[in-house]
């Protein structure tokens, strides 16, 4: 009978691999998700007959599954497309927490001197899973703006984090070498939870997607460790798959931002508010504004318009309004394209999801490399709720936190129009010189409002 279970787990693992493969191509992605889900159903189906229920076991499993499925479905169905990144963070944290709890339960069962091949994966799973759990919660809080998105740093931070890490190593040794008693491994869990918080606090809100991806890989590894602990093949393979692919994805994401992973994770350390002084000197410069009618005329009589959508567009739910404006301009013979920065939105690919939701035609969405040479021929660049991705500081100001990030060449266009709520800096918290450029026109207000007014004015023009 165990052979049957093992074969079922093997089948599940194969389906996970096929699902991941399909997920990496736009045409097959949705089926890939179904394939992976089928693998999950098979793995769970093979587990059910192996459960030996004791007293309360049956009840807690039943209630637990109902509660978890309810919360998961509700969260996943209700979340707005703009809030996807923080939702993924929450689900990831849940997985990490579960892995840590499984390991704690196993250690309790083994008594004070578990064999090393059980104790080692247990402590690994406890530490990594707990870091992933609390780190994901902080990432959620930052993205949901329950707390400030700017990096939180304080003097001596490296020392404090170093001490937490040293204490964790101490308790790991204690659990492995001295005695695995609840005091030692519960302390280990608490310290790891604190480390997760301390690890994510100094990382800026704009970098959260990279952090979530890394913590996703962490949870994968914690799950793989639990697989070693429970001698479960499916957990080892699935967890390792996620750990490996998640690590690569994390690297690809930081590459897309033109930064090294080390710079994303530890960049804020030691440079406490280094840029604050530089930004303050730029107060008091004037910007150019214009009437809706003038802007409408400018747009309607352009030959080429490039729209740069940012997270502000998504927050204002202005995807449909921007498409309406683009359709209207196209009817007037204007060539309209969208320039999608790799990190437009809150994580790579987020903006594609949001615009696809508004039925923006696929062929109008241009990736950065594809469109960057066209900006110099554009009559108008319409920047809707974006800021950092067109900030020339990334090219020109070596001290800037975003220096080196590839940006869209919006500054090369003949006219630049910014639709922004205020002069407030973008998510990275840095001033944008382009706002003060003589070629730039500012249109303040809610993006959806401004776009709707522009649509009406263009109709009249």
């Amino acid at each position: 009978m165990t052979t049957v279970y093992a074969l079922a787990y093997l089948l599940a693992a194969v389906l996970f691999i096929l699902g991941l493969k399909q997920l990496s191509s736009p045409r097959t992605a949705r089926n890939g998700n179904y394939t992976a889900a089928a693998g999950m159903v098979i793995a769970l189906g093979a587990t059910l007959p192996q459960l030996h229920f004791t007293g309360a076991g049956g009840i807690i499993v039943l209630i637990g599954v109902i509660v978890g499925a309810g919360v998961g479905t509700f969260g996943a169905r209700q979340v707005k497309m703009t809030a996807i990144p923080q939702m993924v963070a929450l689900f990831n944290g849940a997985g990490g927490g579960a892995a840590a709890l499984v390991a704690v339960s196993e250690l309790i069962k083994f008594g004070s001197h578990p064999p090393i091949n059980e104790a080692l994966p247990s402590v690994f799973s406890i530490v990594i899973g707990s870091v992933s759990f609390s780190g994901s919660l902080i990432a959620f809080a930052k993205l949901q703006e329950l707390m400030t998105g700017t990096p939180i740093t304080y003097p001596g931070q490296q020392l404090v984090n170093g001490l937490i890490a040293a204490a964790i190593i101490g308790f790991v040794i204690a659990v492995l070498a001295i005695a695995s008693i609840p005091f030692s491994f519960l302390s280990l869990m608490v310290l790891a939870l604190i480390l997760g918080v301390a690890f994510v606090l100094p990382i800026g809100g704009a970098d959260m997607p990279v952090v979530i991806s890394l913590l996703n890989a962490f949870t994968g590894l914690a799950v793989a460790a639990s697989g070693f602990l429970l001698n479960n093949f499916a957990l080892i393979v699935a967890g390792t798959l996620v750990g490996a692919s998640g690590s690569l994805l994390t690297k690809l994401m930081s590459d897309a931002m033109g930064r090294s992973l080390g710079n994303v994770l530890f960049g804020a350390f030691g440079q406490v508010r280094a840029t604050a002084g530089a930004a303050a000197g730029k107060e008091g410069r004037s910007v150019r504004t214009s009437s809706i009618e003038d802007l409408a005329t400018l747009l309607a009589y352009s030959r080429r318009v490039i729209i740069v959508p940012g997270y502000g567009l998504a927050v204002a739910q202005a995807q449909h309004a921007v498409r309406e404006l683009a359709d209207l301009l196209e009817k007037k013979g204007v060539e309209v394209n969208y320039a999608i920065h790799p990190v437009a939105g809150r994580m790579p690919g987020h903006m594609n999801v949001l615009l696809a939701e508004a039925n923006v035609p696929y062929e109008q969405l241009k990736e950065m490399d594809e469109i960057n040479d066209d900006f110099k021929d554009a009559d108008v660049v319409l920047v809707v709720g974006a800021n950092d991705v067109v900030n020339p500081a990334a090219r020109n100001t070596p001290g800037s936190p975003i220096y080196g990030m590839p940006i869209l060449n919006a500054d090369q266009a003949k006219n630049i129009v910014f639709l922004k709520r205020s002069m407030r800096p973008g998510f990275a918290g840095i001033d944008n010189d382009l706002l003060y450029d003589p070629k730039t026109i500012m249109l303040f207000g809610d993006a959806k409002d401004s776009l709707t007014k522009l649509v009406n004015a263009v109709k009249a023009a």
Partner: protein
Amino acid sequence: MTNELLNEFTFFVLAVFVGIEVISKVPTMLHTPLMSGTNAIHGIILVGALLIAAGANSPVTVILGFLAVVLATTNVVGGFVVTDRMLEMFKGRQAAKAPEPATKSK
């Protein structure tokens, strides 16, 4: 090293390479759904959570097991549903792709 541990370690090492290989050519626009999809897959920890919860025999292990099952189920169900919602948005793409050669040829 026992035979079983050696086998498990072999699976682990091979899975590392497979994991890297399968997503090495993923386009940027799929980074978000892919992250969410892999997130759902590590929800397989539910298998572990079920095993420990079913055998829970003390108040502490009952509480730990219950929490583990709730968290793991949230991870699995939420992960797959939210990934599907995201990927559903891409379905219009195939129809929209058809006229692309025409625009290129002019």
